[in-house]
């Protein structure tokens, strides 16, 4: 089942939103409606869906309706029309009490300007969501302390938000959203107010947390680099409409229109495309529970002649080929002894450029590993095709 489903979601700001909606349905544009009626179109019939565990990025220029869209999801802004369905429940039709319940249990939110409670210390801020649910003081502070450790802020429990740097304040914001243990994180330009180094750090942290906690993330940004880095899929908005939805590769390779091309034109593909952009989630073998039989079955399933092996904590162990798996089966050897470690590994943020050489001389996929954990694999084909297709496009651009 989809985690979030958004159907024809629309918001018109102004005294007669229904009239604005009718004009939109007749195909009028945002600026026409503003000129004719004085009403502002925030979001225009947006539809998309988000898979469980996916990071879905919404990108667009200032005023394109990103903040409005994300606030329609948890109804901080009431929609004019359309529906939002979360876990099969229609948010737009909910009564007040169920809506409050859903916000408490399922939706965490992180804000561009942090939105911390200035009169409360870090611990009380992080425990705020649980406090609203009347969780006992002891339990909520215990849980808040745990999330503070997760975001690297232990020891700051008693600090006031104003005493912290921007980056630390946003860690508090993130911890506050995580303490409720919601399935979904709504992040509105969560890192835009931070300076570049802290920003990169927070992005990496988010990816790590997401990998570990497997949250569904709806992430808003106006920054393409950030979108490419974080997004499993990216939606591009213009004037309240979603103009394209796709993976980083799809959007770079086939921009739906000029607006999207404008967005992506300055991207030097081989530089901007990092290992994490083209890697795929591999089928893996787990050392503790899977034996050679399982290995052979899994390889059969995906039609591959080798499989990557991890331990229970996703730590990368090595590669098992089909021949070795069969030998292990026949000679009753544990698969851990058959692993090849001559596989190439790389960090998620390695530029594709640097991988070209490796891709040319290895016959196995490249493993993307971060702090020992296997995040994904990259096949030789995807590196080369990505680069070649990109080069062709650039050349066309140069000659025409």
């Amino acid at each position, binding site marked *: 089942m989809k985690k979030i489903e958004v159907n024809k979601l629309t918001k018109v700001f102004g005294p007669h939103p229904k009239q604005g909606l009718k004009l939109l349905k007749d195909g009028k544009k945002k600026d026409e409606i503003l000129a004719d009626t004085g009403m502002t179109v925030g979001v225009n019939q947006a539809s998309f869906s988000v898979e469980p565990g996916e990071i879905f990025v919404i990108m667009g220029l200032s005023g394109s309706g990103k903040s409005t869209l994300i*606030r329609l999801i*948890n109804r*901080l802004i009431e929609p004019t029309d359309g529906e939002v369905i979360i876990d099969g429940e229609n948010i737009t039709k909910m009564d007040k009490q169920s809506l*409050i*319940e*859903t*916000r*408490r*249990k399922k*939706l*965490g*939110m992180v*804000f561009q*300007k*942090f*939105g*911390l*409670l*200035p*009169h409360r210390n870090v611990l009380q801020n992080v425990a*705020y*969501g649980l*406090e*609203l*649910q009347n969780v006992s003081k002891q339990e909520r502070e215990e849980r808040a302390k745990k999330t503070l450790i997760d975001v690297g802020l232990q020891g700051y429990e008693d600090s006031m938000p104003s005493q912290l740097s921007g980056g630390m304040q946003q860690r508090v914001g993130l911890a*506050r959203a995580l303490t*409720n243990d919601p399935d979904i994180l*709504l992040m509105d330009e969560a890192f835009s107010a931070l300076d570049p180094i802290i920003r990169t750090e927070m992005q990496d942290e988010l990816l790590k947390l997401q990998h570990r906690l497997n949250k569904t993330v709806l992430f808003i940004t106006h920054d393409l680099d950030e979108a490419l880095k974080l997004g499993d899929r990216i939606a591009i908005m213009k004037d309240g409409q979603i103009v394209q939805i796709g993976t980083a590769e799809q959007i770079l390779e086939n921009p739906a229109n000029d607006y999207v091309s404008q967005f992506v034109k300055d991207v030097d593909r081989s530089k901007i495309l990092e290992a994490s952009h083209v890697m795929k989630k591999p089928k893996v073998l787990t050392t503790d529970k899977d034996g050679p039989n399982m290995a052979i079955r899994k390889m059969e399933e995906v039609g591959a002649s080798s499989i990557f092996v991890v331990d229970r904590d996703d730590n990368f162990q090595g590669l098992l080929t089909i021949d070795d798996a069969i030998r292990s089966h026949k000679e009753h050897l544990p698969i851990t002894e058959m692993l090849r470690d001559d596989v190439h590994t790389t960090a998620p943020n390695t530029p594709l450029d640097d991988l070209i050489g490796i891709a040319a001389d290895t016959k196995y996929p490249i493993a993307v590993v971060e702090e020992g954990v296997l995040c994904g694999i990259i096949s030789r084909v995807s590196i080369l095709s990505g680069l070649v297709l990109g080069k062709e496009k650039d050349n066309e651009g140069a000659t025409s």
Partner: protein
Amino acid sequence: MNYFQLPLEEWTNTFVDGWLIPTTSGLFDQISEWIAAFINGVTDLLIMIPPEIITILLVLLAWKTAGKGVAVFTLIGCFYLGSVALWPESMQTLAIVLVSTLISVIFGVPIGILSAMNSVVDRIVKPILDFMQTLPIFVYLIPAILLFGLGGVPAVIATFVFAAPPAVRMTNLGIKQVPEEVVEASRAFGSTPKQLLFKVQLPLAIPTIMAGVNQTIMLALSMAVVASMIGAPGLGDTVLTGISTVNVGLGLTGGLGIVVIAIILDRITQGLGKKL
């Protein structure tokens, strides 16, 4: 400019004498009784407690909230009130100020909250406040006497009319000043409107509300002389006697007493606003 006759005077008198007083006198008698009991209780208490003890309490309060300088001033001020033999009058004035302020806060803060949350209430309340603040005092002194008789009660009512608006306005302002993103964050995590009010909006509005309470107290004190015109006892009465007997010395002695109380209360409430 007398193009048509507007018998406002006649209408008002008919309304007040023919309807307002007969139909509501029971209600007003009741209110009057409550307020009188309240004022008497507070006055009796303040007069019963030995001046030395009140002085010590005030000095400690001043020290805690506003620091050493104000504590010293409070001590000197209390000695002054005692040495010019105006201690009982001071306590009477203090009682009326405290009661008026309390009533102003009890009504003013909730109305301020409502008007900050609801634009319809806001649109109704604003002109009423303007009216309360700009209407010349003596215009409502007369109906106040008619409805509540002479003495402390109409004084408290008149003081309330004059001094309550800042409490309403500053509460409204304080709540509206709470940053939008903080309110938004609270709602996003599933706060009910009540939780939002008590956990976020009110705590963040407290300094502004206290500034309003401070203004209310100052305005209430500035009404002391007027209040004595309609029979309220206290320092205002001393000043009035000074004026009517052309006794400049007495007028000044009483007037200084009001100033001393004003400064003490002002500094203490300001300090309190910063502490909270």
